[in-house]
């Protein structure tokens, strides 16, 4: 299987800022690839290089078998893009923008356009200046999803959507994958990437720090548990998949790999649970825990 996107050793500097510092990224054809990193990590910069909007200082980037800077127009027939910050023309309606972008890309499926408008609950007759951030994002999403393209490049597409619409978006992306399209989905929300992606690349400060399938990155998908028990627990530290255990009398705090969550909870219940809170670790925590040292070391 060929790669839809292949980026190697990419460097891009703006003045003194090194936005990309040897970034690596491989997206295989037909997969949904999560592009994960905190704000300012270089996700949008990478995407702009892939779209031929920025010229890389060093490194190579191949998009659908072509050079994103040289073969721009040819490549852009085959992809659709949703920017992170969508701005619309104030005097054009959402429907007009969807049609315009679709036509400029080389065609739009009218049936799909209608279905998507309904699913995203978007009023296409409103003028661009009156849409909220979420609705502007929906306009760009409908325009992209209704086009007949091989590759979707989505830059934090859900940052303005409410949870209901996020669900609609997830369903749409699942369908796209079934239709064999490739998706590059940038995000700073771990849960979103977990729910949608086959493989993930994690970047920080312009570098790729980890890449692989979700199973390979299983160590990222832990849950943090804080519990107050009836008695001081015993034998917790012997359980597999348990990390960073702190026992403070009847109070315990630890992280657990999600696949071992059931065993650990059974053990806790045995001690009598008075209160329990669980939360997925934030991306920032993960970075702090897993990558800070590597970065300092390198």
């Amino acid at each position, binding site marked *: 299987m060929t790669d839809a996107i292949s980026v190697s050793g990419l460097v891009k500097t703006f003045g003194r800022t090194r936005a990309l510092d040897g970034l690596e990224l491989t997206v295989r054809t037909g997969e949904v690839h999560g592009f994960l990193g905190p704000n300012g990590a270089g996700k949008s910069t990478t995407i702009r290089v892939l779209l031929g909007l920025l010229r890389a200082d060093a490194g190579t980037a191949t998009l659908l078998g072509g050079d994103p800077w040289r073969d721009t127009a040819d490549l852009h027939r085959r992809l659709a893009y949703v920017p992170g910050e969508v701005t619309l023309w104030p005097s054009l*309606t959402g429907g007009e923008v969807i049609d*315009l972008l679709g036509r400029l890309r080389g065609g739009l499926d009218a049936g799909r356009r209608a279905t998507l408008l309904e699913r995203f609950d978007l009023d296409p007759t409103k003028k661009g200046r009156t849409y909220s951030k979420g609705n502007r994002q929906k306009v760009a999403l409908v325009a992209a999803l209704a086009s007949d393209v091989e590759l979707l490049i989505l830059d934090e597409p859900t940052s303005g959507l409410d949870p209901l619409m996020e669900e609609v978006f997830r369903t749409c992306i699942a369908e796209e994958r079934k239709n064999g399209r490739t998706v590059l989905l940038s995000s700073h929300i771990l849960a979103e990437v977990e729910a949608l992606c086959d493989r993930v690349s994690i970047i920080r400060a312009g570098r790729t720090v980890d890449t692989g399938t979700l199973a390979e990155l299983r160590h990222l998908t832990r849950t943090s548990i804080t519990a107050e028990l009836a008695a001081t627990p015993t034998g917790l530290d012997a359980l597999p998949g348990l990390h960073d255990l702190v026992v403070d009398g009847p109070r315990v705090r630890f992280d657990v790999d999600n696949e071992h969550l059931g065993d650990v909870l059974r053990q806790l219940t045995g001690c009598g649970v008075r209160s329990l809170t669980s939360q997925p670790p934030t991306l920032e925590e993960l970075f702090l825990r897993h990558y800070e040292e590597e970065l300092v070391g390198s």
Partner: protein
Amino acid sequence: MSALTGTRHLTRLAFRLDRLRLPVWVLAIALLPMATAAQYKQLYPTKADLDSVRAVLSTPALVAIGGPLFRVSLGGLTAWKIMSTELILIGLMSLLTVVRHTRTEEETGRLELISAGVVGRHAPLTAALVTAGLADLVAGALAALFLLATGLPATGSLALGLAVCVTGLAFAAIAAVAVQLTENARTAIAIAGAVLAGSYLLRAVGDTGPTWLSWLSPLGWAIHIRAYAGERWWVAGLAVALAALLAALAYTLAGRRDVGAALLAQRPGPAMAAAGLRSPFGLAWRLHRGLLAGWLFGMAVAGAALGGAASALTDQIAVNQELTDMLARLGGSKGVTDGYLGAVFGIVGLVVACYTVQATLRLRAEESAGRLEPLLATRTGRVRWALSHLVFAVVGSALLLAAAGAAGGLAYGAQISDVGGQVPRLLGAAMVQLPAAWVLAGLGVALFGLVPQATPLTWVALVACLVLLELGALLNLSRWIVDASPFAHVPKLPGAEFSATPVLWLTAVAVVLAAAGLVGFRRRDIG
């Protein structure tokens, strides 16, 4: 907490945000009358000189543009010349300031952030009105002081300053109502701006015919305060009363609506794009057509008014020698009428260049707003996109000049019964300005492509051209400074001989600049 809690802090914030913008406006408004008075003092040193211009200034077209000339004196002439400009400037400053600190803040959601703090319901509107009102007051006071300094009578100077100030107050209040009507700042500016334009038209028609029409217009009131010509102070009260009334209305309306909402609902547009909206050019047409149509109307009206005024300047009228000389320098002809027409179309050329620059800089505006990125992510090429906007700068400017020239030729020709002869003559006088306007477009493209952050400098270049045209002729600046302006090379038609060399040179410079800009734009980063 009262409805006004926090007004002081918000006013200070407004002044902080406008610390550059407002002083520039205020200074421009304060200095213009003084500069005019100084210029007239030099131009008409004696009473006889002044009397000689009366016949010219009482032609209907000039009365429509500037209002009636109430008294022939240095002050009277200064007030006549500058009042309309002053009123439009102070009106714009006031309405833009009020909209900026009310509806713009509300639309962007920044007001929500502020409203959550200890801020009364009416504090934002009050702060905006206080900000605009203080700026009006300072502008009026400074204008009066500067006029006094040139040696004009105190009473008249005070009246002129007062007229400027109260007109500003009236338009601040008009804007305060406009922002209650619509959810969108641009529409609010359009509403208040339309009232300003309407007031100007009412006054223009009223002063040439049915006088009562001028009394329906705030701009008419200001002019009928009659600075330097037997002041009628009570007229200022009309503007103050209107401002108070409209401000009260604005507060009532604001009290009845939610934050972010408006009295006029947004009209929905088409759900599907028309067949024409399928290319970069189709999009550019949608974005430029309104502006171009407005300009076309304006230039046709201006051309007709200026052409119509020319018939009064027949060579037989004994006109002040200095004026004749000045027209000869600006217009390039010893004949007074042709000199006047040449000078007028030189100014028309510069005014049209404002559109040229505006249309050219749309490139940068689209890029900065982030609207270029999604287009370039389609198969649209960079150069094709840029050209789709530049068509309007290049062809649009030609259309505007043609409109001004043809309308001027018709109006002038109709009065001297020579339409067939004057239309092509004045069309030529207007169109010959085109290559100079194109040079500014070329400069805009070059900056956009090579040093995008510096694109706004194109406006500076345009202002420099204007200054060189006005002052170069008056101050006898050295030749090479004046020659820096592309407009200095334009043959001064209709009086002078047409010469193709400068026209071709200017066109070539414009093309080279634009080509360099486009090459740079192809190679640079977007964003």
